[in-house]
């Protein structure tokens, strides 16, 4: 149904979003998601790394070698967004954005005030 596109789970989506600004280690991703979602999404270690495993397999993210944080074994490895990941994220965001526009037009969500 979504040809050429990766279907992103909510967790995968949030992980990708966290890597937009640059490479991050595992726990950093968790904290980033927490602060962005106001604590609504708080990932456990297994859930996070399960998502990372999948994203790595699908070639959406990769290990960031040489990054400053990567040298610190106490924090675990760092990951960065791969081009395919950026594409998938953008596709997903476009879909969401279209859905939001649709919802706004039908008063499902409040309109943006400028």
């Amino acid at each position, binding site marked *: 149904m979504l040809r050429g596109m990766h279907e992103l*789970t*909510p*967790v995968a989506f949030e992980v990708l979003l966290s890597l937009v600004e640059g490479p991050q*280690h*595992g*726990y950093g991703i*968790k904290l980033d998601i927490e602060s962005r979602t106001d*604590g*609504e*999404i*708080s*990932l*456990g*270690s*297994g*859930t*996070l*790394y*399960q*998502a*990372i*495993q*999948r994203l790595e397999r699908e070639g959406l993210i990769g290990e960031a070698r040489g990054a400053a944080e990567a040298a610190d*074994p*106490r*924090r*675990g*490895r760092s990951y960065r967004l791969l081009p395919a990941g950026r594409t998938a994220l953008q596709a997903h965001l476009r879909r969401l954005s279209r859905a939001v526009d649709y919802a706004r037009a039908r008063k499902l969500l409040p309109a943006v005030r400028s």
Partner: protein
Amino acid sequence: VRRLGDRLFVLLLRLYPRGFRREYGADLLAFFRQDRDHPKYGSGALRPVRFWLATLADLSRTAWRQRVARRPAPEPGIQGRTAGRIRERLGVDLRYGWRDLWSSPGVTVSALAILTLGIGTSTAIFSVVDGVALRGLPFDHADRLVNVAETWLPLGGRPGAAARQNYDEWVARQDVFESIGGSANAGQPTTTTAPIENLHVIRVTASLFGVLRVAPAIGRAIQPADERAGAAPVALISDAVWRRRFQSRRDVLGETVALDGASYQVIGVMPAAFGWPIGSVAASRADLWVPYVPTSRDTVRGSGRTYNLTVVARLAPGVTLERAGVRMQQIRDALAAEYPRWFVDHGIAVRRLQDSIVGAEVRSWMLLLLGAVAVVLLVACLNVANLLLARAVARGRELAVRAALGASPWDLGRGLLVESLMLSLVGTALGVLLSFWGVRILRATLPEELPRLSAIAVDLRVLATAAAAAIVCGVFFGTLPALQLARPDVSATLRHGNRSHTGGALGDRIRIALVTAEVALAVVLLAGSGLFIASFLRVMSVDLGLNPDHVVSIGVYPSRVPAITDRRVRLAAAQSVVMAALDAARRVPGVVAASVLSSGLPLSGSSMSVPVQLPGRREPPFKDNDEAYVHGVTAEYLDVMRCTLVRGRWIADTDRAGAPPVVVLSEEAVRRYFGGRDPLGETIVLNEAPMTVIGIVRGVRFKGPEADVRPEAYVPFPQSDQPGADIAFRTGPDPALVAAAVQAAIRSAAAGGFVAPAETIDGHFAALVARRKFNMIVLALFGVMAIAIASVGIYGLMAFLVAQRTREIGVRIALGALPGGIVQMVLGRATVLMLGGLALGFAGAAVLEGAVRTFLFEARPHDPLVYLTVALVLVVTGLAAAFGPARRAARVDPLIALRSE
């Protein structure tokens, strides 16, 4: 704790498939470590609980997904913030487990009850053992702290306190300690300002708190200037004194504490958690720490020697305990060459401070308790394994269907494992709740002589251990049923239903083995408790030679009258105060008999020994252990203590000061000093004072049931050289009430003197046997728990076997077997089982007996009475447990039994 947590987490990572673990294991651990400090887990005692619950929930969920779905989960869960969402998702994830657990609530509830009991008991006991024997002392790097002791060579080098003179030499000569300090008990003087109370004063060197690395919470520490002669007396006060006497005022510095010896200016308040010295309840009392200002007695090597300093040192970096020991030995030897008189009977020992506080004896006692409770826990685990096995068998058909539909043995087994883990976690949570209550009871029942009683608590360490125990138990009793189902005979099960074939012979054998093991372990515990009960009964039945019931004692210490300089006059004045107190006590209604008793109460542990001589005796002088306990008493003493006069006459009121000195000896004294001769009328020299023997009394075990009968001598109190004494009296029915009245009477009679609180001889006796009593009660409790759990096991197994053989039994009844015969058959089966367990248990108990022998009083090896009783108790309880299933078997209706399959 953190390292323990790390290890536990690494262990838990094994729940993930190997590939995932290899790839992300290190990262998961790093995540785990960072997550520990996340603020969302809140604060306080529940913080680690929240953290672990979240971690375990996440771990079990993802591990399950990783294992079950070879492909990643379609919708990985998100840990929400609201409780409702967590509950909702947990409900989805653990629904299988719960459904299975509640599908047979009887099994679940009994398993939970047994687990709660087992884990609750072990947690409570572990917190005691941990607090007393395992936990380090509450000081910074306490493992580097050592105790330097002078040893008393005649007693095989028993470590004791040090002489100040020697301590000063050590300080000057040693090069193995970073710092060294000491403390000495300065007794308990009375305050002179309200509230009037006795305060425990500890004298410390200025260096001591530096050695321990503690500082006052308020104010300054004791400094070297404070310990110089002539320095203004200062004191650090305990947190409790600060709260009690100074209402927690911050401006307490500069206030004074006035004691009857001296008055101290407060320079600081120690933190609430600080305590020194550390030991039994009595030895740990400290209200005031004052500088140890050495006097000439402490610095000059005169004729007397005083050993009163407990020396603590901190090993210098890189120095081992052994090297410090060798170095201090060299210093001791050098000192011995200079001052031989000081070292003829004294050596030196350097021990870990913790070992000096918690001796090997207490440690092995604690390990005994831990071992016993581990057996209880093991019995509980075996039983739960058995219950789960039974349920797995009952569900055999369902599992076989799932296997037929493609579930691998691993899938089925893992499900059982998750269930048992859930069970053990809930059991542990309940058990921990139970243990909070158990620890409260234990703290109240433990003998006060036990060191570090106050360190006992259910805390993080204990909780972490309980959690580890839960996981081990869960895996243990989840594995067995899983193992059995590893090769389910699918077609056979589906064909025959779940009665006769599921699990098969292997399952039966596992279950029989489990119950046999349970019975054997219960027998070991029962035999152990039997030995402790027998030992306690032997102690209680020892004839003390006196009757401590309803005997109360109140110490009277007349104040010194400084105006009187003559020693004899002063003694007479003091003794007349005591005699006046005695008269006052005798007049109180309810006092049956009253007597003065100087130099220590029976069973209290204090006594006074004096050297004995006989005039004209040719043999060498009597040795130290031939010294006699001497008591100054008055006429009614025999009636107070209910001792027996054997011959001659007892001390009378006419044996006053100035009258011819007389003495009554105990039979043991007569045997030792006079051999077979008649001592009446003979002269004996006690402490260089000659006196005439007028009577013989039966001996008394003055230091308690486990002490030897020592030679004793009773002299009239007015003829003794003691200024102060106890007034001991026997009361009617209500000792407490009478004691209060006597106390008031004595107070007014001995005006100006110090009147001690009332103590009962019964109380001293209770303290003497407290440890034995505690051991007996705890072990008996464990024994009862083990046998109760084992009975449940026997019941379950027999019920299962009967249910399994319903068809066979039906056939037998159809063929004419009588109900009695069927009952006999089932009970016979149970008996065989119990005999197997009994034999194994006895073998185990016989081996373990050696390990507990040191804790027993006059233990008989393999006490036949104990073993016989155990066998009887087991067989009776076991048969009672098996009787229900046996009766059910006898009532099998052959028609229904045969039709049902």
